């Protein structure tokens, strides 16, 4: 195991530099590509390139505390650029690269929503996005100073001694308790919640999480997760990089088209650790043929950690049964409970042991009690997300935030040494979720049995599709504008897709239309509206005016209407599926 007490560096930059000095030729990041040989960064080459970027960034006017949005596709120079921002005390904020289906105006609105809270100062991107982003940067109300294309910068020249001294002067002033990075929750129209994390919170988490998974010098991380997502950024990038072990980074866009890439990288590089959202277990087990799996060995894997959406027992079973013959050990089936607000993990299953499962009475569970039941007709198998990490506390609370006794279902509240200090420039949202004693109320529902945490649902209406959070409000707003939909008379909700092992977005919309052909056309218009905000609407249910049940606030109730739709008893409901 890595002895973190021997590792130096109180800021991220100092930590990276420590490894560049003590193990300069060790591999730090292996940038994987399906068509080219991987680019292999050592700690030394990475820090040298990052230093060059730091000088160039500084010369453009970026200074300590500035927020730099990074909107860049899978590129080997992304990593030193990210590090270079940290190396001058500015805050990198990785944003999703826009999908071609996303409407440019919607993309700009998303950026605008972010500037409201996080005050984006600079945008570092690719030339291909210039036309799309420029109108936003030129807008009078924007906080963004300038748009840069750092992948075009010249990195040939060595740094002169004056610049070395200037960088050194800047770095001495970066303090461990100061913010180091900024993450944004999903959402397109100002619903994003920016979370900033300090150097010390991040490094403390690297240590606590590293210990929880018995991280050792022999480990090698592999990941296809996007780096704008906390699981990709923290688990698969920061944890290995600040622990002195290599990570293999795969393009998420390529992985989703060719999931075999993950296994090819594991097999060729003998990787030991990876993190996946639940849907990936189903996707890989269902879609990878024996022909594709030829020559693949999964023997090196000691932990595949399920996170970012509810963990399903059947997904673990399916994955294990499918890949056992390729050397996958069932003891590698792991899980964790994590969120950006606590840097990442709160709990983690025990390394070398398959994630625990408990079979409970479904009806009793719905009523708040955890009662073990082996009656297959009425039980629900829940998968543990493991035990608490060091320096983390947890309690299960009722609706009044009073602590509940063990084996009772309630909202999960957490406290951690790696806790965020509140949403940036969003005091009212912070006050909703963080109390004066430092407890963060997660909105997730779960219970604890034998010190193992089981997460079974959530209080909030957020829809989690393949590990990505989608706000129903965003989808409802855009569908409300579709011609022939009764404005404001829409609900969006998450519908379970057991085959894929995730949720999908469903829409219920009122319309005055009546014919099959008109319904068909309206369905396509609604799907297209979702595409504009990069949300794939999976099911469209069309209903006549005044069909939707209203809540006490006068708005259509998501919960009541979801139940009504899923009861599938009303013949007035039109749907293609």
């Amino acid at each position, binding site marked *: 195991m890595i002895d973190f007490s021997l590792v130096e560096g109180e800021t991220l930059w100092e930590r990276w530099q420590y490894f560049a000095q003590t193990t300069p030729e060790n591999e730090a990041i292996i940038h994987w590509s*399906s068509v080219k040989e991987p680019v292999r960064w050592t700690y030394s080459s990475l820090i040298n390139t990052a230093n060059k970027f730091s000088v160039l960034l500084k010369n453009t006017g970026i200074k300590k505390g500035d927020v730099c949005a990074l909107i860049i596709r899978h590129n080997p120079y992304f990593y030193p650029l990210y590090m270079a921002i940290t190396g001058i005390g500015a805050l990198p904020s990785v944003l999703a690269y826009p*999908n*071609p*289906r996303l409407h440019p105006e919607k993309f700009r609105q998303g950026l605008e929503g972010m500037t409201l809270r996080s005050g984006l100062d600079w945008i570092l991107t690719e030339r291909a996005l210039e036309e799309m982003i420029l109108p936003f940067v030129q807008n009078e109300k924007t906080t963004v100073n300038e748009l840069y294309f750092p992948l075009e910068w010249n990195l040939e020249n060595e740094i002169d001694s004056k610049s070395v001294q200037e960088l050194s002067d800047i770095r001495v002033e970066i303090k461990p308790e100061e913010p180091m990075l900024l993450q944004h929750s999903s959402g397109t129209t100002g619903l994003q919640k920016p979370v900033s994390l300090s150097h010390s919170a991040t490094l403390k988490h690297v240590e606590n999480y590293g210990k929880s998974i018995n991280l050792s010098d022999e480990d090698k991380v592999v990941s296809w997760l996007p780096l704008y997502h906390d699981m990709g950024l923290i688990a698969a990038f920061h944890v290995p990089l600040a622990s002195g072990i290599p990570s293999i980074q795969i393009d998420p866009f*390529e992985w*989703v*088209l*060719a*999931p*075999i*890439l993950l296994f090819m990288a594991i097999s060729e590089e003998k990787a030991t650790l990876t993190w996946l959202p639940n*849907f990936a277990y189903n*996707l890989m087990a*269902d*879609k*990878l*043929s024996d*022909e*594709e799996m030829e020559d693949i060995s999964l023997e090196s894997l000691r932990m595949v950690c399920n996170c970012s959406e509810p963990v399903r027992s059947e997904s673990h079973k399916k994955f294990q049964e499918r890949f056992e013959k390729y050397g996958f050990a069932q003891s590698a089936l792991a899980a964790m409970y994590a969120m950006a607000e606590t840097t990442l993990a709160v709990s983690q299953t025990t390394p070398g042991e398959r994630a625990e499962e408990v079979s409970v009475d479904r009806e009793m569970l719905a009523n708040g009690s955890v009662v073990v039941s082996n009656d297959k007709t009425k039980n629900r198998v829940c998968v543990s997300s493991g035990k608490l990490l060091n320096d983390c506390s947890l309690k299960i609370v009722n609706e009044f935030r009073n602590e509940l006794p063990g084996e009772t279902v309630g909202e999960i509240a957490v406290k951690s040494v790696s806790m965020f200090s509140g949403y940036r420039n969003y005091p009212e949202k912070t006050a909703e979720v963080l109390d004066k004693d430092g407890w963060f109320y997660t909105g997730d529902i779960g219970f604890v049995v034998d010190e193992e945490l089981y997460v079974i649902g959530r209080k909030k209406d957020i829809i989690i*599709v*393949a590990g990505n959070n989608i706000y129903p409000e965003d989808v409802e707003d855009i569908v409300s504008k579709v011609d022939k939909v009764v404005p404001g008379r829409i609900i969006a909700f998450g519908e379970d897709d057991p085959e*894929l092992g*995730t949720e*999908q977005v469903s829409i219920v919309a009122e319309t005055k239309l009546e014919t099959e052909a008109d319904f*068909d*056309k309206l*369905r*396509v218009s609604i*799907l*297209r509206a979702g*595409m504009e905000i990069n949300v*794939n*609407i*999976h099911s469209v249910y069309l209903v006549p005016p005044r069909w939707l049940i209203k809540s006490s606030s006068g708005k259509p109730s998501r919960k009541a209407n979801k139940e009504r739709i899923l009861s599938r008893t009303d013949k007035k409901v039109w749907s*293609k*599926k």
Partner: protein
Amino acid sequence: MISDRLKKIICEELYLDPSTIEINDETQAPEVPGWDSLNHANIIVAIEKDYGVRFKGLEVLKCNNVGALQNLVNSKVSD
């Protein structure tokens, strides 16, 4: 040139009416309503099943539009 057969498979998988949806050689997946990364695997499986062929993930990865997918199908069928 996209065959009616390929277009029909894609549209059936996405519950679309082929007569109202434009799909040509240059069409990319994100331009077709409902064709997202999660549905992509289902569409590929439906094409494999209908034509009785198998694709490798890396072959599909190289297809950047429907025209390239049609060429891949043609090459498999003629094998």
